[in-house]
């Protein structure tokens, strides 16, 4: 690793062994974090503390705030709605990962090539990236309408299902639309990752007589390890915050069949005027997000600060 890329742990280590003069410079540099720290405290720490306090309060969002003790926590934890939302959140998280990772990995490898037609195709693949979630949801809702949608327009009766009105169809559809929207983004990450792999590795493999499939499994995949972890972290932690798309597409329905945790929090807080229980869900969401992010970091292994090109 070159000295030019000085990460936080490195500067700390340097400061420990540095002369007094160097230590002073580091102190001066520490002030540069002040603006970032200020915004972090104002926009992350303060609201987080507020939510924690609200989770022990009874408030309808309009009148005075009263104390609820542990009441909100007990009532939310005893509510079967919470476990339905938790289960759905994890189901959508897992299904999203299983669907999106292989597709975006293969697309990324494919679009990393240099032929001109690939560039043209890549533009098409990345199109959904340009649309906002609300627009995607409204468009799909209109296309899937069993009475006025695509099915009637094209005369394809098998498409005329009640896609958003039957619980298991609605869940499947939500997973599909999420994949449609986010696969391009992850494809972009993988494309970048693949382009970083040195050509010499493939040239050497070719001389040894390895075919395309062997090259993919023995060079591309291992080299993409950290790209996969980055993309998976974004996917998994991001899936906790899916909200806009599902809110516009199904509103959590039919019944509670797509009411994921983030949506549950919103509906409790702003529809049912129960800010306390909604804050409990918010705290649960934060805890799950933290645990997942830590878990995925561990998965990366301890050597993740090292170069991927070691031994080259």
């Amino acid at each position: 690793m070159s000295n030019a890329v000085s990460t936080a742990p490195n500067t700390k280590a340097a400061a420990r062994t540095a002369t007094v003069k160097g230590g002073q410079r580091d102190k001066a540099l520490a002030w540069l974090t002040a603006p970032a720290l200020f915004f972090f405290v104002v926009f992350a720490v303060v609201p987080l503390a507020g939510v924690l306090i609200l989770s022990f309060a009874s408030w309808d969002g309009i009148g005075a705030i009263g104390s609820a003790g542990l009441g909100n926590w007990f009532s939310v934890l005893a509510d079967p709605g919470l476990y339905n939302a938790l289960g759905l959140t994890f189901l959508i998280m897992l299904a999203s990962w299983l669907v999106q990772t292989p597709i975006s990995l293969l697309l990324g490898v494919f679009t990393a090539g240099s032929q001109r037609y690939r560039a043209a195709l890549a533009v098409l693949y990345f199109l959904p990236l340009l649309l906002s979630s609300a627009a995607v949801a409204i468009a799909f809702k209109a296309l899937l309408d069993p009475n006025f949608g695509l099915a009637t327009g094209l005369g394809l009766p098998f498409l005329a299902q009640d896609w958003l009105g039957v619980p298991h169809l609605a869940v499947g559809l939500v997973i599909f639309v999420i994949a449609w929207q986010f696969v391009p983004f992850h494809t972009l990450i993988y494309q970048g990752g693949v382009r970083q792999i040195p050509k010499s590795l493939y040239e050497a493999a070719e001389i040894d007589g390895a075919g395309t499939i062997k090259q993919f499994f023995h060079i591309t995949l291992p080299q993409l390890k950290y790209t996969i972890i980055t993309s998976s972290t974004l996917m998994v932690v991001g899936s906790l915050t899916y909200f806009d798309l599902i809110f516009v597409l199904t509103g959590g329905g039919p019944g509670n069949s797509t009411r994921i945790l983030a949506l549950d929090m919103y509906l409790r807080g702003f529809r049912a005027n129960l800010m306390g229980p909604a804050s409990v869900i918010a705290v649960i969401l934060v805890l799950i997000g933290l645990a997942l992010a830590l878990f995925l970091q561990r998965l990366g292994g301890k050597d993740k600060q090292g170069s991927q090109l070691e031994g080259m």
Partner: protein
Amino acid sequence: MKQPQSSRRSFLALAALAPFAAMVTSACGTSGPGASSGGGASMWYLSGEPNQTTMQKAVDAFGSANPDNKVTVTYFQNDAYKTKIKTAIGAGQAPTIIYGWGGGTLKTYAEAKQVEDLTSWLAENPDLKDKFFPASFGAATVNGKVYALPNQYVAPIVLFYNKELFEKAGAQPPKTWDDIMSLVKTFNNMGVAPFSLGGQSRWTSMMWLEYLLDRIGGAEVFTAIFEGKPDAWKDPAVIETGTKIQELVSADGFIKGFSSIAADSNADQALLFTGKAAMMLHGSWTYGAMKKGGQNFVQDGKLGFVQFPVVAGGKGDPKNGVGNPAQYMSISSKASEKEKETAKKFFKDGILTDTVIDTYINSGSVPIVNGIEDKLNTSPDKDFLNFVYDLAKNAPNFQQSWDQALSPTAAEALLNNIDQLFLKSITPQQFAENMNATLGK
């Protein structure tokens, strides 16, 4: 030489501080968004025709008559508005004039002292109070005090039907629940959906429960629920209502995909006037919307309408109505004195003027104003207008829509449970038990 330098430095410092200053001042602002600096008042209102144009004309007319006290309106979609106004009031950012449906939500506002008590002001202006249907003040009253001015029109829920399809089927509009069940068979055999329903909006499904419970158990059952009496939701009439609904769902009474159709886009009305569905239980306000958007469906006399049918052995009076007795406007207590004055002046001179009353009648609605019989009779829509007027006037009990009558907490639980009842994911007994847990909340 020094001076320009220092002034440049202080200028840069100021520029760096400006965003913070803006943040601080905006955080301290007490007036709602859209409030003008003069004596004007701000108001939020629902988008959608024909009412949006009517309101804009009324506001414009008031503005040109009172150039110093203008009212500025911002428009929102129905479902989005309901969330936004609650959040805005909670954050102290409400507009001067708060539009709503009275009932449970208004009670929450009044108890949190967010809206002005209009009782004494109305006593000082008896002409204004006497102008409206007396019944329209019910949902505006909390603990004996009036917190909102009734507005717009009376909107009962009506059973609409497509006359063309009924002629084709050789059928008569339903008078009893048994008629409904046999019509379901008739229309399903014809390949036409019996009932249109925008079930994703959920309050649309609720209209069925409101009428059924009234016809089966009478008005007393819901009154007990409204008053929070113990086990009020466990009334046998509630169970029977739920059972009848699930029978209708099982018999394919509602159009395929009803639970994914939203009422905001008026797709449910389109199903009726395009002949994909034979009947629709919906608010009388859809008459005006269908007249405007239904390609002469209403003008050609193809739209039929009847009262909700009776249920054999039911206790309810068949003349009872449900729906919205009126719409309501309150004044934010956080507004400045000048803004409040403008709002009151607008209440007195600006809304429900003769022009506005005529516009409502022309668009197929019955304004909540006394002595309009002559005007109704000269309208091309006089059949429908008189039907609505008589329904509202002759109803021994006119039940306000449940999601408006109940508190927001209970209303959200109700809508959620109704959705599951229609999907048959809970039984009528579970519905009654789930709702019973919300009593007094």
